[in-house]
C-alpha cells in the first residue's frame, strides 16, 4: 500500500468502461465493473502481510468449524464414549490433553469452533443490519429523526454493555439465540455513527442531486447510490465487529450465560474454571480454548485493519 495507487480511494476512483465481450448491456457493464473492482481490491489486499496472515488463520479455523459438523459427536458425550484418562496432560494420543470426564480437549475445541464462529457471525449480521440501517436512515433523513436516532445511538454507545447483557440474559433466559440477540443489539451503535458520517458526505454529491432531479425515489437513491458508496466502510467495519462479537460471546459464556449443553470456547473455559482447573494444574484445559479465541479475534482484527487501510486510505499504514 505504499504505492501511489494504494492511496486512491477504491470508491472515488474514476472508473473507465471496462471491456465487455459481445453485446453491451448495462448489466454486463456493471458486472464487469464489479469484477474489476474486486480484482483491484484483491491485488491491494495481497500486498498486506498482516491481512494475509489473518486470512490464513481464518481459513484454518473455518476448515476446523466445517469439519466439526462431520465429527463423531459420541466422543463428546461422557455417557457414550469410553473415557480416556481423566485430566491427562497433552500427549500424542490427546494432543491438547483431556478434561475431568476424560474427553479430549481437542475434540471439545473443534466442536466449540463451530458454535463460537456461528454466534459471532450471526450476531454481527444483526448488528450490521441495525447499525447501517439506522446510520443510513439518520444520515439521509436529517432533521428531528436524525437528532432523536443519534440521541439513542449515543446512549447505546456509552451503555456498559456487559452489565446490560447480564440484565437481558437474566430476564430472557440463557440460550444461544438470546446471546446472539444480546450481542447484536448492544454492538450496533458504533457502526451507525460511522455509516451516518459516510452517508452525510455521500449525500452531497452531484450525481445524487441529478438522480433526484430525474425523479428518483428515496428508495432508489439509497439503494442505488448511497448504499454502494457506504458498502466498503460497512464491510471493513463488519470484519472488526465479528472480532468483538466473538470476544463478547466468550465473556458472556464465561459468566455462565450460555447454554450449558452447547460447547463454545467460552463455555469450555467457564467449565474448566469452575471445576478448579487452576488449582488442579490443568492448564491445557484452560489455555487451549483461550488460544483459539485469541487467534481468531486476532485474525479478524488483522484482516479488518488491512481492509480498513484499503477502504480509508490515508497516509498511515498500521
Amino acid at each position, binding site marked *: 500500500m505504499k504505492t501511489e495507487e494504494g492511496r486512491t480511494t477504491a470508491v472515488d476512483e474514476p472508473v473507465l468502461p471496462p471491456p465487455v465481450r459481445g453485446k453491451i448491456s448495462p448489466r454486463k457493464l456493471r458486472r464487469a465493473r464489479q469484477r474489476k473492482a474486486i480484482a483491484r481490491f484483491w491485488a491491494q489486499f495481497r500486498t498486506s502481510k498482516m491481512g494475509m496472515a489473518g486470512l490464513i488463520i481464518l481459513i484454518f479455523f473455518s476448515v476446523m468449524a466445517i469439519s466439526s459438523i462431520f465429527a463423531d459427536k459420541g466422543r463428546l458425550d461422557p455417557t457414550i464414549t469410553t473415557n480416556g484418562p481423566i485430566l491427562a496432560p497433552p500427549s500424542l494420543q490427546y494432543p491438547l490433553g483431556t478434561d475431568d470426564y476424560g474427553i479430549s480437549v481437542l475434540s471439545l475445541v473443534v466442536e466449540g469452533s463451530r458454535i463460537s464462529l456461528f454466534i459471532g457471525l450471526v450476531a454481527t449480521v444483526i448488528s450490521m443490519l441495525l447499525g447501517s440501517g439506522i446510520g443510513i436512515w439518520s444520515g439521509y433523513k436529517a432533521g428531528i429523526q436524525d437528532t432523536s436516532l443519534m*440521541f*439513542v445511538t*449515543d*446512549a447505546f*454507545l*456509552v*451503555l*456498559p*454493555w*456487559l*452489565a*446490560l*447483557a*447480564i*440484565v*437481558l*440474559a*437474566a*430476564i430472557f433466559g440463557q440460550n444461544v439465540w438470546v446471546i446472539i440477540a444480546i450481542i447484536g443489539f448492544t454492538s450496533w451503535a*458504533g457502526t451507525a455513527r460511522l455509516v451516518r458520517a459516510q452517508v452525510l458526505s455521500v449525500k452531497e454529491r452531484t450525481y445524487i442531486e441529478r438522480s433526484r432531479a430525474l425523479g428518483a425515489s428515496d428508495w432508489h437513491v439509497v439503494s442505488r447510490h448511497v448504499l454502494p458508496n457506504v458498502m466498503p466502510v460497512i464491510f471493513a467495519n463488519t470484519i472488526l465487529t465479528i*472480532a468483538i462479537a466473538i*470476544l463478547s460471546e*466468550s*465473556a458472556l459464556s*464465561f*459468566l*455462565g*450465560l450460555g447454554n450449558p449443553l452447547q460447547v463454545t470456547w467460552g463455555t469450555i*473455559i467457564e467449565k474448566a*474454571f469452575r471445576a478448579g482447573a*487452576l*488449582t488442579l*494444574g490443568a*492448564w491445557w484445559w*484452560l*489455555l487451549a480454548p*483461550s488460544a483459539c*479465541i*485469541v*487467534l481468531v*479475534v*486476532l485474525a479478524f*482484527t*488483522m484482516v479488518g485493519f488491512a481492509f480498513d487501510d484499503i477502504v480509508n486510505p*490515508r*497516509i*498511515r*499504514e*498500521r
Partner: protein
Amino acid sequence: MGSQRFLVNRLIRLVFTLWFVLTLSFFLFRVMPGDPVTKFLRQAGAKYTPEQIEALKHQFGLDQPIFPEQYVKYMKDTATLNLGYSTFVYPGESVSSIFWERMGKSVILITTSTVASIIIGVLMGIYGGWRRGGKVDTASMGSSLVLYAMPEFVLGIIFLLIFTQWLGWFPASGYESIPQVHTGFNRLVDIMGHMFLPWLTLTLAYMGEFYLLMRSSLLDVLGEDYITLARAKGVREKYVLRRHAVRNALLPTVTLIALSFGFILGGVITVELVFSYPGVGLLSYQALQAQDFPVLQATFLFSAIGVLLANLIADLCYGYLDPRVRTT
C-alpha cells in the same frame, strides 16, 4: 463564556442519557415474563395464599398501573437511592448499603488501572507512531494486537497460572487475607498484594487498545500539511512532535477512549470473577446466578452512571485540549 456553554451543553446531554438509562432499566425489568411476586415466592420455595400475594403486591405498589404511577415511584425511589432490598444474595439487606460496601473496592481498582493503561498506552503510542517501523514499534504493535484480541478473563487466568499457581508470588483471590490478621501498614500491603494481579490484568488488557488508538491517530496527524510546514520552517523534531502533532492527535484518542469505558466496566466484571475480588462486578455475577433482580438493576444503574461520569471527565479533557469546542 464559550467554555461554560460547552459544559452546560454536555451536562444537558448527560441528564438526558441518564433519563434514558433509567427508563430503559425500568421497562426492561417490567417486560419480564411472569409477575415478580409469584416468581420470587416460587424461587424462595415459600407457600403463600392468594390473599398474601395480593397484599405483597400492594405493599410494593405492583397493583398500580405501570405508567405513570409505578414509573413515578421508581424515579422517586431511585433519585433518593432507595433501591429496594436484595432478595437472594444478601436476603433482606438494602441494596444501597450493599453497594456502599462494595463500590469503593471496585472504584479503586478501575480508576487506578484505567489511568495507568491510558498513560502507558498513550505514551507508547506516541513513541511508536513517531518511530514507526522501528524495533520498539514492531514489538509493541504485535503485543498490543495480542492484548487487544485477548479477553480480560483469559489474561487473568494466565496470570493466576503463572504468578499464583507456579510461582506462588501472589494470593489467588479476595480483597485481603481472611481472617483479617494484619493491621495498619501491614494490612495495606496485604490488600495491595491481593489487588496487584487484577490491577495488572486490567491495565494490560486496555493498554494495547489505547496504544493502537494513539498510534494510528498520531500517524494521521503526522501526514498533515502543517507538520510538513513546521518541519520546513526548521522547527526542531522534538517541538514538532510536542506542540503540533501530539496535541492534535490526542483529540480523536480522547473521544475513542471515552467510548471504551463501557467495555472496560464489562471487563471488570469478568476479572473480578476470576480473582474473586469482592467488588460490584462480582456482585453482579452473584446476583445473576441467584436471579436477584433488585441487585441486578442497581448494578446496571451504577455502572451506567459510572460510565456517564467517566464520559463527562473525557468531555472536560476534550474541552481543555481543543479550544475550538468551547465556542461551539
